[in-house]
């Protein structure tokens, strides 16, 4: 199954006689919609709800790009991809942007021919253990059996952590997230490791979420960001500044509810941002109303976060590193001028 999909992607790579290196914007406009690669099975990040409507932080990021390009956040087709498929799918031009909780690394930006835009979620790898084991720290995990969520940097981080602490462990790697969860909740492993946000999502679907605790150690840096292909600077700018616009809007206090009122604001920063003073959109090759459309239809970063993964959702995540820089977090947009 997975293999077959992978083969299809490979054939797609082979069959593309000439991959269009520049002009993703023109391609997307000609198609009339954006093709976004997503995970598809991580609650809170990208997953269809009961009615089949895509929901999540990554989904909303892709919608924001569509709003910027088309003025319509719904002109997106979502392509669920496994960890193995995602990079070839982007490289081959099957998708226009990858919003699939993907960690920015040096290898991916160089050898894999990709560019990461501004981070849309700062994450880190952690451990989830059953409460009854009575473990307080990841350093007590010597000899443990560890269920590893299929991810790219996850297996390596875990191996590095155990190696550097001179501990032995046994990984159980299952490709299907749902199967791995079942095995972990049934006690096949002593602990489950993945990005902390994903662990929160897994715990929320446990038979009894209160029986599991996240250990305090965060063993890696996982800056998750949308990805585009190398070599198309205009498209990179559009996706990058779309993410920044989400953050900037939160900082300026513009929300989906008050954005119409904000059009009349006297603040020159807000006027430039919303296109009341024209220029910013043109520079990107977009309509000057691009940022207005994003905020009106999708909301600012804070709204997206609280709606999908915040404390009032089943994931119940604090803003933490993902708070604005003015509130002790890392979310910091470059100036819009």
């Amino acid at each position, binding site marked *: 199954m997975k293999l077959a999909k992978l083969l299809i992607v490979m054939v797609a790579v082979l069959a593309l006689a000439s991959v269009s290196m520049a002009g993703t914007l023109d391609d997307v406009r000609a198609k009339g919609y954006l093709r976004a690669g997503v995970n598809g099975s991580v609650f809170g990040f990208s997953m269809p709800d009961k009615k089949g409507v895509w929901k999540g932080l990554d989904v909303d990021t892709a919608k924001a790009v569509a709003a910027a390009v088309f003025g319509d956040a719904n002109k997106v087709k979502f392509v669920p991809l496994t960890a193995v498929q995602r990079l*070839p799918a982007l490289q081959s031009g099957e998708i226009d942007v990858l919003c699939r909780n993907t960690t920015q690394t040096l290898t991916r930006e160089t050898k894999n021919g990709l560019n990461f835009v501004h981070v849309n979620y700062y994450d880190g790898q952690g451990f989830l253990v059953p409460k009854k084991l009575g473990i307080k720290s990841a350093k007590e995990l010597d000899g443990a059996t560890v269920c590893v969520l299929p991810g790219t940097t996850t297996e*390596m981080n875990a191996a590095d952590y155990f190696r550097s602490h001179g501990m032995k462990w046994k990984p*159980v790697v299952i490709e299907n997230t749902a199967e791995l969860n079942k095995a972990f909740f049934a006690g096949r492993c002593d602990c489950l490791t993945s990005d902390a946000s994903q662990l929160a999502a897994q715990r929320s679907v446990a038979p009894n979420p209160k029986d599991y605790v996240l250990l305090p150690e965060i063993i890696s840096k996982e800056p998750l960001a949308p990805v585009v292909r190398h070599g198309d600077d205009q498209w990179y700018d559009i996706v990058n500044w779309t993410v920044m616009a989400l953050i900037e809007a939160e900082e300026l206090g513009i929300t989906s509810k008050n954005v119409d009122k904000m059009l009349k604001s006297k603040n020159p920063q807000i006027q430039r941002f919303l296109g009341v003073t024209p220029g910013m959109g043109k520079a990107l090759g977009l309509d000057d109303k691009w940022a207005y459309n994003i905020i009106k239809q999708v909301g600012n970063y804070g709204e997206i976060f609280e709606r999908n993964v915040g404390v009032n959702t089943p994931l119940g995540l604090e803003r933490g590193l993902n708070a604005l820089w003015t509130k002790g977090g890392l979310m910091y947009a470059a100036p819009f001028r």
Partner: protein
Amino acid sequence: MSRQEQAAASDPFWLDPGKRAIAYQVGVLCMVGLLAYYLVSNTLTNLEKQNIASGFGFMQKEASFEIGESLIPYSAADSYGRALLVGALNTLKVSFIGIILTTLLGTIIGIARLSSNWLVSRMAALYIEVMQDVPVLLQLFFWYAIFYETLPSPRQALNPFSGVFLTNRGVAMAVPAAHPCHKYMLAAFITACVLAYLLRRWARKRQEATGRYFPVVPVSVAAIIGLPLAVWFIFGAPLEMDVPRLQGFNFKGGITLSPEFIALLLGLVLYTAAFVAEVVRAGIQSVSKGQTEAAMAIGLKPGQVLNLVILPQALRVIIPPLTSQMLNLTKNSSLAVAIGFPDFVSVANTTINQTGQSIEGVALIMAVYLIFSLSTSAFMNWYNKKVKLVER
């Protein structure tokens, strides 16, 4: 020179069907070659254009991921090449053991299917129908789930016999503690096997020449069991066992079979055995009943009828489809990814994940399965040739 030959020599080659066939074949070969060249060069150009690294240079780099079970020493500090070797050996392990068990079980069920006992034959039929009709992936999930859902955690391990512990982390068993006599016992075992083979050849020759019968089977079995046992006694019969004991999270010592391995083996064997049973049944039924009756009429015992008359003829029918079932089992073992057994596909997937070199990774997966399958079928073809009806 006859007139016909003369005509053939002077005709242009396109009028000669033999030469024309060669020309067509060369043409097709050229087209296939060109297509392959186009695909490869196109891929390489595109990869280069997108600044994607290609080639197998990554094989020497440090893998930095751990593998759950391995036949050879492996740690995260070893190279991708070694990690892939570990995966290939795991695939080989499960396929090899699986093929042997499948052949045994399939033969037993196939014979049971033909039994004159109503209950036995219906039970075998039921088994075959159920196992053949449930997709093997579902069977794997089923056995895996049974394992981790029903068995207790290591701290409450089931202990059905002394030295055997059943837990949701696997089956831990006691094994004899390492002792220098083991390698001599192995040598004795191999010697006994060789002796049995020579004995069989000698007995056959003598029977053909003189008609005198020699009881090869009991003597061989006695030698194969007795010789290593004798060596063991010479060393003073060391009885020390390496018993698994609970330490920290899990059992240490003895040998442990992981739930993933057991579930995969069980799923593959039970599924494929149903097909093998049908193959065996068809083979035996292909030998006409008259043969059995004739053999009985000349006074052969039932065992001799099976060994000397029916099996040699049935095997000709059984071997080719049996080979394809063995290949199926090997290829189906790649479903291991679904239940977390670190087979070749699983390790290659992680490698692809980390290096981003999916084309090389998938090419390797294809190459490894091709090698496994071709060697299996080469061996089986050799065996098939041996049992083929010798026409006189």
